[in-house]
């Protein structure tokens, strides 16, 4: 503010209004131009914005915009979907780059139910030979991606994307060996809490 340097009263040309209230007097200075310009500019913006979105419907609505963006994302995902099969997941599970990336995802997301040791708590044990929704690599991949909502397994595909899911699956598979027996279990019975 410029008045910082100003310790003298303002010029006498500033006319005071005749009346005073409990000793308070008032000047009647003009409104600053920049202030008026700000006021008018925001009003003009309102008119233009309202015309653009609400009268002429030139811009998309919120929902139309997000639907369009989501369609683009879905297309990109479909195009980038890795062609996975059991063999390639097994191969990834022996590759330290994939396994390390998978461990990071597992420990921030999955470990809260399956524990960092993968031995299970709220969610089932992932290092034994018992599987509820199938123990073949692509079955595990499907379980993580789509979830099993009735059993409380969230669908992680939309949140993590195919790359992170395949890494996490590779990390789980790194605790197993190709060809080991798979037994089907009906439901997981968690250990009693510590």
């Amino acid at each position, binding site marked *: 503010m410029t008045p910082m340097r100003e310790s003298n009263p303002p010029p006498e040309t500033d006319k005071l209004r005749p009346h*005073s209230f409990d000793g308070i007097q*008032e000047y009647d*200075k003009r409104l600053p131009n920049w202030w008026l310009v*700000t006021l008018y500019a925001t009003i003009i913006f309102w008119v233009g914005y309202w015309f653009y979105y609400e*009268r002429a419907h030139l811009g998309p609505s919120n929902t139309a915009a997000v639907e369009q963006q989501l369609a683009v994302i879905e297309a990109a995902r479909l195009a980038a979907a890795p062609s996975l099969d059991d063999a390639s997941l097994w191969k990834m599970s022996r590759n330290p780059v994939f396994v390390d990336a998978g461990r990071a995802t597992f420990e921030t997301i999955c470990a809260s139910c399956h524990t960092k040791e993968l031995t299970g708590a*709220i969610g089932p044990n992932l290092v034994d030979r018992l599987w509820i929704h199938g123990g073949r690599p692509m079955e595990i991949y499907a379980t993580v991606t789509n979830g099993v*909502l009735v059993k409380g397994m969230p669908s992680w595909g939309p949140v993590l994307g195919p790359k992170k899911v395949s890494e996490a699956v590779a990390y789980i598979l790194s605790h197993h060996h190709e060809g080991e027996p798979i037994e089907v279990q009906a439901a997981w019975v968690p250990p009693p809490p510590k």
Partner: protein
Amino acid sequence: MSSPIMPGQKTTIEYNDRIVRMFLLATVIWGAVGMLVGVIVAAQLNFWQLNFSQAFLTFGRLRPLHTNAVIFAFVGNMMFAGVYYSTQRLVKARLASDFLSNLHFWGWQLIIVAAAITLPLGLTRGKEYAELIWPINIAVVLIWVVFAVNFFWTLARRREPALYVALWFYIATIVTVAMLYIVNHLSIPTSLLHSYPVFSGVQDALVQWWYGHNAVAFFLTTPILGIMYYFLPKAAERPVYSYRLSVVHFWSLVFVYIWAGPHHLLNTALPGWLQNLGMTFSLMLWAPSWGGMLNGLLTLRGAWHKLRTDPVLKFFAAAVTFYGMSTFEGPLLAIKSVNALAHYTDWIIGHVHAGTLGWNGFMAAGMIYWLLPRLWNKPLHSTGLANLHFWIGTVGILLYVAAMWTSGITQGLMLSATTEHGTVLVYPNFLDTLITIRPMLLMRLIGGGLYLTGWILLVYNVVRTLRGALPVNGTIEVYDEAPAPDSRLGLGAMFAGAPTVFSLLAVGFGTMWMLGTDLVSTLGLAGAVACLIAGYALIPSRGRKWAGWYEKLLLNALPFTLLTFFAVVAGGLIQIIPTVLVQRAQNVEDRIQVPYTPLELAGRDLYIREGCYLCHSQMIRTLVPDVLRYGDYSRLGESIYDHPFQWGSKRSGPDLAREGGKYPNIWHLRHMEDPRSISAGSIMPNYPWLLAHPLDASTLPAKIKVQRLLGVPYGPLSAQQIFDQVDEQAKGIARDLRAAGGYVAQDREIIALIAYLQKLGKSVPVPPKAAALP
């Protein structure tokens, strides 16, 4: 008084300064309490252990205590002290009634005490800044009426014919707060301590933020602007910069403010036209707000050198500067794209505190330091301490605000960061973002602590000043004059005045253009343009006459008050009435909520009791990062039966709109018992009492009766049927928990809460209906 003294009977008036002293001391005390609770809740966000696993000490119950204490107890008492002190002097009359003044004071303190008891007990309406239960709401309205009667009665007895600008702001405050408070608190009681709001879902959201935003406007801003217009020129001993700026910014402020409420609901399921109104009117609010700042700062012309020595002026100058800063930040945050990043984050908390700590707190401090010597006829104990208060407080605010900006922007960016061509979130785990901002939360605690320390210095200064001081009441000698010829503006002349007519026409035509269908809209546009041209053309010849009309208006309080009411009522009517009148079914897009079972409803009331909505939203916005993280965006119909709505305003934890069915029951049990056993690094409190307390289902029949009355499609259930349904559902959940190793009796509160959480996001598709409104 500059007018010549007329011969007449001389009388001496003694002002009622006793009531000012009472409100002033209440301000000092409640300020300390409210800020202390603020520091406590800030500490709880850093150290979850400070929730002590005690129901009445948890964040969710103390946070409403903090907000209600600082808004209604601290700023409320400060406002009453300032209004009563200045009004008596501006109208040269003692407050109309000592009885009403005392009733006002003690009634208000009683309300505060009632709030301080009920909120920690979990008795709440579940709407922000409108948490107090219905019997207290009625008390608030009654005491506000006492305030209004006392104020307007004093105006009626005034010896000063014209109303000074401070009084305009007081009038706007009294009228508007009454309107907002009553509408947002319309409820139907289910018991002495509990009620459901009459509005639900989107209607409730709209009414809530029409109220919430304008509580900021008309409780924290307009009365304090009025106080600024009295105390700042008094302390600076300088004339107010510009009368015409006062006129323009007063009317534009009170008119525009009301429309801006929907900016709290941008990118949500709120209909788009309301969002666009909220955003554009928020931008138009920028200049009117800065009008107040300019009139404050420029009044200091010629007095800036006094800032070096006078703590009062330091506080006022800084307060007005913070006011300018936060009223620039407000419109910025109301821009949809900025809001997409900042909403639900700490940036909003920083914005609010720049206003409350900077503007409200510093105006209060300046006013208190200025009033103390005048009300107790003794110099301030220590000017040095007051200066120290100023510097500690300023550093505190700056630390606080900078920490919250950094935290909010960091978290906002992390939450919306995507990778792999925008298809995947970089930080899918919400906790990663929370852990990143933890140092900023600590910085905020330090800033808030410093601010509280400054206030404690004020308390000490007040105590030392008061020691041995004798209260003194202001007096003035007046001459009872023969009544002057009545040149006041009557009601008819008010309505027929060109400024009124032009304003009404412009608002009417503007609304037709905005919301009308083709022909109405075109007519509205033509009318608005005609108004603009006519107004512009007439100003050179009629401007002086219109100024005279306004000066006559200032002589008559009733037409002035009515005009103010018209100005504030317009925005609310145009936004709320269409939304409320539209049939519920037409508010529904493609999905409609499945009503809660009795057990789920009981769980929902527990969710509200524990204040979960203060950290968890239930609104997935129409934004890609929200959809990627939480699932499909929320539809209007999905909260259509929610009395009150729980869309939330802050995400200290993740959104819960689609939480239902995401995790097994056992996950919720373990998580409520000890969140860190599931989510390492969580700052959520433990809720062990939910596992220990039995659910009080006996209130359910009364609650469901009220829900039916409000239009929620419950069948005619007998009490026994309700209890049977509760039993059956609870038994199922307990059985499922047992199978998973969780042993909880089926009558515990946690069972109901789990039932509710598992219901979140459950809806059924409905055939699409044509929307009835733009």
